């Protein structure tokens, strides 16, 4: 494969960003929309071609002896820090990258199309498309990164695009606040990532290089991943506070991923990010950007494996987050928030799966890299059905002009397309055969069980919760009781226009069939194909749990009944706590606002004004004061003058004499 296609893949969205960003004001909406959609369609086609070529061409560059290769299509120097620390901008093609290309461009295209309908009447339509292009560009740059620093660059860029898109309705203070929060929280996480990169690259660049990739930049993934033993030896050797430096570095880098992927305790931005337009939530906060953390772990998987502690850390963080998010999702009434927590939970699923994978064959484990493969598989399927769910939610919001399911109910009659597709999404995420979620979740749970029964059991419970809250939402929206407002106002909810429905249908189809893709043939931790097969015991357990959860949801929510409120009143504190997300926001608010802003920032500002500046002013004041104090010397009387004169002369003589003596 030449470099043309990869360059085009990066260049097209960036060019679109510039064109729409600078020239957008002068363009009509229609032109801007068509430009954006066409460009993204082209982009998707190009990405498919690349992925197809990579997976199916059989080219020796891509698959050698049945092992899929990691290929740097190009890699040009962008900035050289030191001789060994060179930042390149390049294009690394490997299975997960190809997979991500497909996911990103697909969802992006769907969202572009969908937005044409959804955003039709919003001011700043052109700007919106420009930002979408910017995001697509950044995300593509992220996944094709050849080195950790390039990843970091685009990592920041996706943060900014996310900021811009969340704050798209910039006149709403809540949107502005949400965008700010999202940016700052992720930025805070990125700080750790930066420190991790600093540590890692310092040690790597100070290790004598050998091997075929020895001369490569200290940031280079291939180098870092291919001969971890040699290059990273020194980092493993050096210790800091009980852990090897590499452990710390990898944990720090992972913290960056936690921020982007909204892991506890850095998850607080994601629910708020739902202030953005819904298609944006679908694209960024469900399908692509938030999985960057998972992608990061996958990308660095071999290095993480050197320090198993870091993998354990990932597992623990993921497990806690998954459960937490699932519980919280059960107590939300805003459908987008429920989806957001569901996203957090599902991403945490992937994290746990990755954390449960091994790099090398392990005794007693059927396939050591299963977690890796399953995590990636779930990333893929989740992207599809979660985007579907979000877009569906967008249709609902579009129809009823509210985010809360209390304003909905009984919508199945009015919005059939939306209803069906939404149901498919719910079934997929709940893990019901034959929808895609079943397959990927099954593999993940199998991997977890193979690591330790506890993780498996824990995550199965989370899967059950997932099924429950998804169907709770489904029933509340589409069943329950018809909202009387629909009849009263002449405006009845109806299905969305074709631009919005088409993506729903496509994605629903994908969600139905994606589970049958032999994913293991394409994406595994070491490039060797793996034949997926269902683990009957695990599948049975999870399916049972899911069905039971759905049944419970059906009992509680299918028709209007007092059961939910009874249960709610059983533990009102718990419900409120879950509804308030267990007060994480308040804690953060307290720390940032009360402590950092009010005490530290104001304290420093006060210190600066009054102590530092005061000292400077005091110098002037003291000078003035001296000036006033000595004015008596100049009393106007000749005799005083002469007295001073004489004192001066005598003192001069006397003091000098004494000194010389």
């Amino acid at each position, binding site marked *: 494969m030449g470099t043309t296609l990869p360059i085009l893949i990066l260049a097209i969205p960036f060019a679109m960003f510039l064109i729409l960003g600078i020239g957008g004001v002068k363009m009509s909406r229609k032109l801007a929309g068509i430009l954006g959609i066409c460009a993204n369609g082209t982009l998707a086609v190009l990405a498919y071609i690349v992925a197809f070529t990579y997976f199916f061409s059989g080219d020796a560059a891509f698959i050698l002896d049945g092992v899929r290769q990691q290929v740097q299509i190009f890699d040009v120097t962008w900035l050289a820090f030191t001789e060994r620390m060179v930042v390149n901008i390049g294009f690394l093609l490997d299975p997960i990258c190809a997979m991500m290309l497909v996911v990103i461009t697909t969802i992006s295209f769907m969202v572009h199309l969908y937005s044409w309908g959804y955003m039709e009447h919003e001011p700043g339509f052109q700007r919106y498309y420009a930002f979408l292009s910017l995001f697509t560009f950044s995300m593509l740059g992220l996944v094709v990164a050849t080195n950790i620093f390039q990843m970091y660059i685009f990592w920041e860029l996706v943060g900014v695009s996310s900021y811009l898109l969340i704050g798209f309705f910039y006149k709403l203070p809540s949107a502005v606040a949400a965008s700010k929060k999202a940016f700052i929280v992720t930025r805070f996480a990125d700080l750790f990532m930066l420190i991790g990169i600093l540590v890692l690259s310092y040690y790597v660049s100070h290790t004598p290089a050998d091997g075929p990739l020895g001369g490569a930049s200290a940031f280079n993934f291939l180098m870092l991943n291919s001969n971890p033993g040699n290059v990273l030896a020194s980092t493993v050797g050096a210790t800091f506070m009980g852990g090897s430096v590499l452990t710390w570095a990898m944990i720090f880098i992972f913290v960056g991923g936690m921020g982007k992927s909204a892991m506890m305790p850095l998850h607080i931005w994601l629910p708020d990010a739902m202030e953005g337009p819904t298609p944006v939530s679908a694209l960024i906060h469900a399908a692509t950007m938030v999985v960057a953390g998972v992608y990061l772990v996958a990308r660095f998987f071999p290095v993480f494996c050197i320090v198993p502690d870091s993998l354990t850390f990932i597992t623990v963080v993921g497990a806690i987050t998954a459960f937490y998010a699932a519980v919280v999702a059960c107590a939300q009434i805003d459908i987008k928030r429920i989806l957001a927590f569901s996203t957090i939970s599902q991403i945490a699923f992937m994290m746990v799966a990755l954390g449960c994978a091994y790099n090398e064959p392990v005794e007693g484990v059927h396939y050591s890299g299963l977690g890796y493969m399953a995590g990636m598989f779930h990333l893929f399927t989740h992207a599809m059905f979660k985007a579907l769910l979000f877009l569906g939610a967008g249709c609902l919001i579009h129809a009823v002009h509210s985010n809360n399911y209390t304003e909905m109910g009984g919508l199945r009659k009015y919005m059939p397309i939306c209803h069906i597709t939404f149901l498919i999404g719910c079934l997929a995420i709940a893990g019901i055969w034959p929808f895609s979620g079943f397959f990927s979740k099954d593999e993940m749970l199998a991997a977890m069980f193979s690591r330790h029964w506890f993780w498996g059991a824990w995550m199965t419970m989370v899967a059950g919760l997932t099924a429950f809250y998804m169907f709770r939402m489904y029933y509340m929206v589409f069943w329950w009781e018809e909202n009387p407002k629909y009849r009263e106002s002449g405006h009845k909810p109806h299905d969305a226009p074709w631009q919005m429905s088409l993506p729903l249908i496509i994605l629903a189809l994908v969600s139905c069939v994606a589970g049958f893709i032999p994913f293991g043939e394409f994406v595994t931790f070491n490039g060797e194909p793996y034949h997926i097969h269902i683990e009957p015991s695990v599948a049975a357990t999870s399916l049972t749990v899911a069905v039971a959860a759905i049944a419970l949801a059906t009992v509680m929510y299918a028709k209007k009944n007092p059961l939910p409120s009874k249960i709610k009143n059983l533990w009102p504190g718990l419900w409120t706590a879950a509804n308030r997300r267990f007060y994480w926001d308040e804690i953060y608010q307290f720390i940032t606002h009360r402590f950092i802003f009010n005490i530290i920032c104001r304290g420093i500002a006060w210190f600066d004004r009054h102590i530092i500046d005061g000292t400077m002013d005091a110098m002037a004041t003291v000078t003035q004061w001296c000036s006033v104090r000595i004015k008596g010397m100049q009393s106007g009387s000749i005799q005083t003058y002469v007295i001073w004169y004489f*004192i001066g002369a005598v003192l001069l*003589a006397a003091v000098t*004499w004494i000194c010389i003596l």
Partner: protein
Amino acid sequence: MDYSQFGAMLPELIILGLFFIVFLFDTFSNEGGKKLLTPVTTVLFGLATVAIWLIPSCGDTVFGGMYVDDSACKAMKAILNVGVFIVLLQSAKWVESDEVAIRKGEFYELLLVTLFGMYLMISARHFLLFIIGLESASLPLAAMVAFNKKHYESHEAAVKYILTAVFSSAILLTGLSFVYAFSGGSLYFDDIRAELSSGSTPGLLICALAFMIAGIGFKLSLVPFHLWTADVYQGAPTAITAYLSVISKGAAAFAFFVIFVQAFGTLYSAAWEWMMYAVIIVTITIGNLFAIRQKNMKRFMAFSSISQAGYIMLGVMTESALGLGSMMFYIFVYVVSNLAVFSVISAIENKTGKVGMDDYDGLHKTNPWLSFAMTLAMFSLAGIPPFAGFFSKILIFTSVTASDSMALYMLVLVALINTIISLYYYLLVVKAIWINPGEARIESFRSAFSERLALWLCVGGIVFFGLVSGIYQFCVESAATLV
């Protein structure tokens, strides 16, 4: 008895000749002729200035070593002459005013005699001649300070001046009499130098040195011998203030250098260096502290000139040709900068009678050129490049730090810190002119030709003296003949 030795004293003779011309002209001319007195004197003095610049120094030591005319002295005289010429130009308007016109002859005569006295101070190599020079330079000035008969301040200033002057000359003479005790019976500088070059420093000699510093410090207005300065500057007619602040100070500084470096330079224990060290620090600081609060421009300039005297005296601490050269250059720059200020002050005072700093508020609206000149002069005094004051300050600092002494280094530090305070009050004037709000209190006017000429000369000096290094070179080369 070789009377041809008088020929070596060409500068003095020129001034004396001018003095007699003015004297005779003033005495014997009729009313109409008197109108010509001012232009004639000014032009003649201008010619004399040119002549003194042009005539080569013979380098002779005449009258048995009592008088020296080397190029350093001549350069100094030439520098002073330029200053006096500017003073004459800026005072021409004032001299012709009703109040003063009747006494203008005396004004020029006294001015010329004091200048003559300063020449003697500069060239003297014998204490007697020096004392006579000093007294000729200061006594007639007292009469000139009292020139504004209608102003009470003028009288008060004169009284303060003369009484302090006599007191200081009594101190000086007492000090000198003690020096005489150690001089081996001769008051020639070179004899004293030879006599003092060995042995310890007895207490009496220290007293003598302290009294001499006090006596000459009076002329230089070094702290604490400076207290007359402000009152006299304020009370005296502006032209006289200008004259006092630059010419008499410059001559005294040069003489100070000659006396202390030539006569006492070999003193074993460097006693006077330490005295000067303290005096300089106090001078610069106290001068600055007082200047901060001043509201009357002339009084303000008095304190400014006190602190400038401290900077000038830094040159003495070097005891080297480089230092003397830097000091002369400093004096020259100081002459033009300070006279630029006084030109503006006197132009405004002659026109409106206002000398308060508040009166300068918003001056730029009515008199942009005066404001501009004043600003440049203030920057120059504060030592801001690219104006000459920057160069003179830095060069003198450089020459002071040339010796490897930490003490001098610290002295320069103190001086540098004081430049900040001085910058503050110089900027106050700039602020009044450019920044202070409100309507201008001084109406727009066109100053007299002579005043403008003076101002242009000064501004030219301010701008070019630093950029054209030849003047500094000239000063250093001239100074090399002395040290």
